[in-house]
C-alpha cells in the first residue's frame, strides 16, 4: 500500500549542481552519533598508520600539528540526507601521513576512539582527496563533531569521515566497518546514491 500524505514533501532541494539526489541543504550542522561522545585529551591523542605487514607509524598531537597544514573548503553529504555546503577545515592531508609508508594495500579501515570503524579504498584517501582535520570554521573541532580530530573524505557519504579518528589500518581486501557491516554501501558515492549495499 503506497498511501501518499497530501502536502508532505520532506526536506528537499537546493542547487542540483551541488546537492546530490535525495539530499537537502542543511544550514545547521547536525550531530550524529553511535555512542557516548569520547573525550580525548590531546596529551593522550595519537594517530597511527598500520600497514598490512604490521608496521606502525605514529604521530603525537604536537608532531601532527607540526606537519604541513592544509585548508580544505568542501561540501559534505550525510547519508541521512543533509548536505552542508562551503565548509572550512584545517588539517593534514592523508598524502602527508602516508608519504613514508611502504604498502601495497588497496584498502584502509579508519579506526576511532570509541570503537567506530569505516572502510575505504586507499585510492580515495590519497591525491588530495582526504584529510585528518582538527579545526572547523576557524575553531578547534568540537568533541560532538569528532574532535580532537576526524577524517574528512568529502567526496563520499559523511559516515566515511570517521569522527575521533585515531588511525588507519591498510588492508589488502575491503573489510566492512560499523555501518558497512549493517547494510550500508562499501563505497558510498553520494552522486550515485550508493546508500545501501546493493545500490
Amino acid at each position, binding site marked *: 500500500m503506497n498511501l501518499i500524505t497530501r502536502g508532505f514533501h520532506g526536506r528537499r532541494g537546493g542547487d542540483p549542481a551541488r546537492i546530490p539526489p535525495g539530499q537537502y541543504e542543511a544550514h545547521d550542522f547536525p550531530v550524529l552519533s553511535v555512542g557516548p561522545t569520547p573525550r580525548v585529551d590531546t596529551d593522550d591523542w595519537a594517530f597511527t598508520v598500520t600497514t598490512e605487514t604490521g608496521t606502525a607509524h605514529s604521530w603525537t598531537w604536537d608532531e601532527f600539528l607540526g606537519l604541513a597544514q592544509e585548508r580544505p573548503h568542501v561540501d559534505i553529504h550525510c547519508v541521512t540526507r543533509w548536505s552542508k555546503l562551503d565548509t572550512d577545515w584545517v588539517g593534514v592531508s592523508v598524502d602527508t601521513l602516508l608519504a613514508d609508508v611502504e604498502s601495497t594495500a588497496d584498502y584502509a579501515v579508519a579506526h576511532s576512539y570509541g570503537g567506530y570503524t569505516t572502510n575505504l579504498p586507499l585510492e580515495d584517501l590519497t591525491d588530495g582527496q582526504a584529510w585528518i582535520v582538527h579545526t572547523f570554521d576557524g575553531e578547534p573541532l568540537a568533541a560532538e563533531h569528532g574532535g580532537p580530530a576526524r577524517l574528512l573524505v568529502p567526496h563520499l557519504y559523511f559516515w566515511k569521515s570517521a569522527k575521533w579518528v585515531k588511525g588507519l589500518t591498510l588492508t589488502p581486501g575491503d573489510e566492512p566497518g560499523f555501518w558497512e557491516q*549493517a547494510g550500508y554501501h562499501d563505497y558510498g558515492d553520494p552522486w550515485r546514491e550508493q546508500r*545501501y549495499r546493493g545500490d
Partner: protein
Amino acid sequence: MTRPTRLDGNVLAGPLSEVFSVDLTAAARLCSVCGDEGVCAQLLVYADGPGLVARCPGCAVLVLRLVRTPHGVVLDLGGTGCVTIPLGEEP
C-alpha cells in the same frame, strides 16, 4: 539539532516488530559484559544516525544495530547478553 540525541529502548518497539512477533522492549536483559540487569526498554539508543544503535546502560557495550534498507532489515544482536522474553500477556 546540533547536539546528539540519545533515546531509550522504547523506541525500538516498532522497528523490532517487523522482525519479532513478541515485544522485545519489555524483555529482561542480563549483560554478559558488566552484569547489568535491566529491561530492553532501558537500553541507550542512538537514533539520529544511519540506523538504530542500542547500548547497555551499564557499560555502553554495543547491544544492537538495526538498519532498514530497501532490501530488508539488517539486524545485529551483538552477542553481549541474554534476553528473557515474557510469554504471558502482561510484563
